[in-house]
């Protein structure tokens, strides 16, 4: 416990400040169905480790790394319940339940199908860099490979999503 000014903020503040970002990352990595579960596992693990953290830690980046490890666990657990013969080739099978507007829902369903179909490294690079705010170097440290490879994976993944989804969305 530190008595200096550089103290850890109360954990409730961390949840309020970074909860939404962590959830976006979880959903991109494990899919909408498992996102809540991955979010809960992430924050519970973070809460357990929190008091021992150096107060200067970049908390959002730390949470994204915790989310990565928890997401891997969540997916492993789900795979155990996957019937034999199906292909658990990588993390996730994103699905979506809660888009209100039917026109938007069609486009979103499409993008989530595309996200699910991305190679795992592309999806992780996209999630951790573009949604989680990690640098390419930090993502590389987390998932392996070089930062250049991570940069390419993120760009390729984004290009794939844009090809089918982007024109009306980004214009």
């Amino acid at each position, binding site marked *: 416990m530190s008595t200096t000014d550089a103290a850890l903020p109360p954990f409730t503040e961390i949840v309020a400040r970074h909860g939404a970002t962590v959830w976006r990352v979880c959903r991109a990595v494990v899919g909408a169905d498992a996102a809540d579960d991955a979010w809960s596992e992430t924050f*519970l693990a973070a809460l357990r480790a929190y008091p021992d953290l150096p107060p200067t830690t970049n908390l959002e980046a730390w949470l994204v790394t915790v989310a990565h490890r928890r997401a891997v666990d969540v997916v492993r657990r789900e795979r155990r319940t996957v019937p034999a013969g199906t292909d658990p080739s990588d993390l996730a099978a994103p699905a979506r339940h809660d888009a209100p507007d039917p026109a938007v829902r069609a486009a979103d369903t499409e993008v989530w199908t595309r996200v699910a179909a991305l190679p795992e490294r592309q999806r992780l690079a996209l999630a951790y860099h*573009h949604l989680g705010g990690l640098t390419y170097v930090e993502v590389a440290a987390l998932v392996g490979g070089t930062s250049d490879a991570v940069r390419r994976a993120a760009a390729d993944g984004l290009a794939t999503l844009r090809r089918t989804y982007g024109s009306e969305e980004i214009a």
Partner: protein
Amino acid sequence: MTTTDIPRALAEGPSPARLGALTDALAARAEADDLLDVAVRTVESPVGELLLAATPVGLVRVAFAAEGHDAVLDDLARRVSPRVLRAPARLDRVARELDEYFDGHRTHFDVALDRRLSSGFRLAVLTHLSDVPYGRTESYAEVAAALDNPKAVRAVGSACATNPIPVVVPCHRVLRSDGSLGGYLGGLEAKTTLLRLEGAAA
């Protein structure tokens, strides 16, 4: 964060309701796993919004809005544990008893206290205050005398002024010898409100 150039569906966050439900569920699991070192919630009261904080031992802090609730949370994170979470369940009983007190239906709080934020003479003063009955008052000098330390009038004053558990530990029942209010960390208006509620002052 770079979210401007990615498909909207990915950048979209959870609804506030969903995030709220997840946060509540997290607090419940933290409690079950013995990770909820400090549970906090707020309650409305006639003396303004009160922040309540409890450890597994008991009620550790009651704070007036004037103290700045964010500053109080920071202080709890530093002095007790950074594992501070909004978790109403642990504080349900305190909140209910406070409601009853402010409605005039309760004259004594029956909740466990965690007095770790006080020590030494201040702790002795605050422990004594729990024995000053509802509707009665003592002077700073009387409290000092009761603790066999009649010269420590100022120290009694500062113990009251830094009471971590006001209202429940009734430092508002301590006045100056001439009957004037003295100070109060919730403001003199709050002190008057509490004393009038208890029928102890003009």
